[in-house]
């Protein structure tokens, strides 16, 4: 296993976890800029574990527990941003975005454009992707592709804690609405990463991909946990002499197309691994873009590894099979080589 996780060889004390990353990013940005306010459900009791100490540090004016009012909360954040604050909203479970969809689309995404550039909406909305754990139909969605389809929003899906911290800090400083989807499968060991130095500002720019593994035969793009699966598959394929380059876009809007195109032009093959439902997924967008821009360089089909187009079933006997897995990624890579 260690071969698949070269970045995780450090001791636990030198590593950063997902929840710590969120806490550090939020705390540092609230210290840096008094306009940053934190809002969320069960935040002050720190039920989700990422808000440790913020209430004591910043007080009740800037740390607010929200009622169960997702639409009201997102609209409130938009209005507060238009009036000078920089709200961070913890929406907890990503499936709850649907309750607030009108406010995301009609207000957060559109006001700047509709009003001819008068509005600034520096809002960050965080939501966790809680799939793969028996949460069933109402808690396990991975809805980020829907927001990729809405102009005016930025969309971030980090795959390790250091990136999460750095992307979140950039998102809070960005003058636009940024949606940060956090893959809950990475909360534990999988998402840990070397801890950035305490005394150095750790910013990861939006719209810049990472290449956690270089290779020459196939480009494997991964989203969230998809990066982890891609790295695992790459290690397995290496035994057969297949060299995979793994690319983690980290930001889905704006997507770092130059990095993806450059890699695919070099390898001639592409697999996109995405925990979202297959139709109109981020993987679909990557596939279409690669075919449009790199067709002459392709030596095999572009293949998507996604969640099947069904809702998430409860029973463990039903659930596991629908998601991307290391084996599905391995098979997809072999298909591009065939």
């Amino acid at each position, binding site marked *: 296993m260690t071969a698949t996780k070269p970045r995780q060889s450090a001791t636990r004390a030198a590593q950063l976890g997902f929840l710590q990353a969120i806490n550090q990013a939020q705390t540092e940005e609230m210290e840096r800029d008094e306009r940053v*306010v934190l809002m969320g459900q069960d935040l002050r009791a720190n039920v989700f574990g990422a808000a440790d100490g913020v209430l004591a540090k910043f007080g009740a*004016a*800037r740390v*607010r527990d*929200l*009622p169960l*009012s997702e*639409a*009201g*909360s*997102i*609209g*409130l*954040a*938009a*209005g*507060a*941003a*238009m*009036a*000078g*604050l920089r*709200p961070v909203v913890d929406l907890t479970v990503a499936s709850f975005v649907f309750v607030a969809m*009108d*406010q995301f689309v*009609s*207000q957060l995404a559109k*006001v*700047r*454009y*509709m*009003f*001819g*550039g*008068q*509005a*600034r*909406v*520096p809002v960050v909305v965080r939501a966790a992707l809680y799939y793969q754990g028996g949460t069933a139909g109402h808690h396990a969605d991975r809805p980020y592709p829907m927001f990729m389809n809405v*102009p*005016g929003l*930025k969309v971030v899906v980090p795959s390790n804690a250091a990136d999460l911290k750095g992307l979140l800090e950039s998102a809070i*400083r*960005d*003058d*636009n609405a940024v949606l940060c989807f956090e893959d809950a499968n990475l909360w534990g060991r999988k998402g840990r990463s070397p801890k950035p130095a305490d005394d150095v500002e750790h910013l990861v720019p939006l719209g810049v991909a990472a290449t956690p593994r270089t290779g020459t035969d196939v480009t494997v793009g991964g989203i969230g946990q998809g990066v982890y699966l891609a790295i695992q598959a790459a290690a397995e394929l290496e035994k057969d002499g297949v060299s995979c380059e793994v690319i983690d876009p980290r930001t889905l809007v704006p997507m770092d197309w130059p990095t993806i195109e450059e890699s695919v032009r070099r390898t001639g093959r592409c697999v996109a691994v995405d925990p979202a439902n297959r139709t109109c997924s981020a993987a679909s967008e990557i596939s279409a873009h690669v075919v449009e821009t790199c067709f002459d360089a392709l030596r095999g089909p572009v293949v998507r590894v996604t969640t099947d187009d069904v809702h998430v079933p409860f029973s463990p006997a039903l659930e596991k099979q629908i998601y991307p897995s290391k084996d599905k990624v391995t098979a997809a890579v072999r298909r591009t080589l065939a």
Partner: protein
Amino acid sequence: MYAVRLFEEATIALFHAGDLPAMVHLSIGQEAAAVGACMATTSDDYMTGNHRSHGHPIAKGARLDRLMAELLGKATGVCGGKGGSMHLADFSVGSLGESGIVGSAIPVATGAGFAAQVRGSDQVALCFFGDGAANEGVFHESANLAGTWKLPVVYFCENNGLAVSAKISDTAAVPDIAIRAAGYAMPGVVVDGQDVLGCYRATSAAAARARRGDGPSLIEAKTYRFHEHAYGLAVPVPYRDQTVVDSWFDTVDPITSFAGRLLAWRLADEADINAVRAGVEQVVEQAVQFAKDSPYPEPEAAYTDLYAAPEEVDA
């Protein structure tokens, strides 16, 4: 009020001349509510409105020529031609925008009030919405949040009794939206929406309460729209009696009734009123001319304003 009336009558003429790229939702008959409420605020205070959209920014102090240019989709419009009638906004006078999705700007005003509270300013947020919007979930969510956090928001319901064609008696369980205030620990008052001074007094009291830190209020102005939901909209089945419309127009036109009161109280004579009317007529005429003379935006403008460039931040 007269500026709102003439501005909208000018849009009717532009509509028939084929100069208006889309329908407009007229507030003719409802001017006293918008004007009375906005006169109780300053340009530092925030305001959001709805698709019946022209009266709010005019009353808030926005320039009529730039508003009219926006209606014609011109580059000089308040939104550079990207918003149009239903999405007028003029941040320079605190107008954070009208909203075409019924009710969707209610939480936005609530957020502006929240920002004022966090920053410790004495600004208030004036939130216009109709009786139809009062049935949207975000009205409840916003009023509950504002009541809980004691936000400086004035919820101002322009109740014209109709959601397109649906009567409030068929769509709301209570006849007065204002009584819902009790559920949010805020005062709720009903005012005569045709009485500009009554609307002004109620909003002034609510704004003062908000500035004191005592939280939000809900004002319901009973008003009436004289035209269709949208100008030019053909409704196949009559849903209201024209004699009722006529009687409202004849008896409770907010403009003629206010002028009558000024005369009765000897605060103005006919000459004064005529002078005001003439001044407004000139401004509206100039606004229409400015809008017509203004250029359309360059096609490239369709691709700007989607995202903000980094803001200059003071150290």
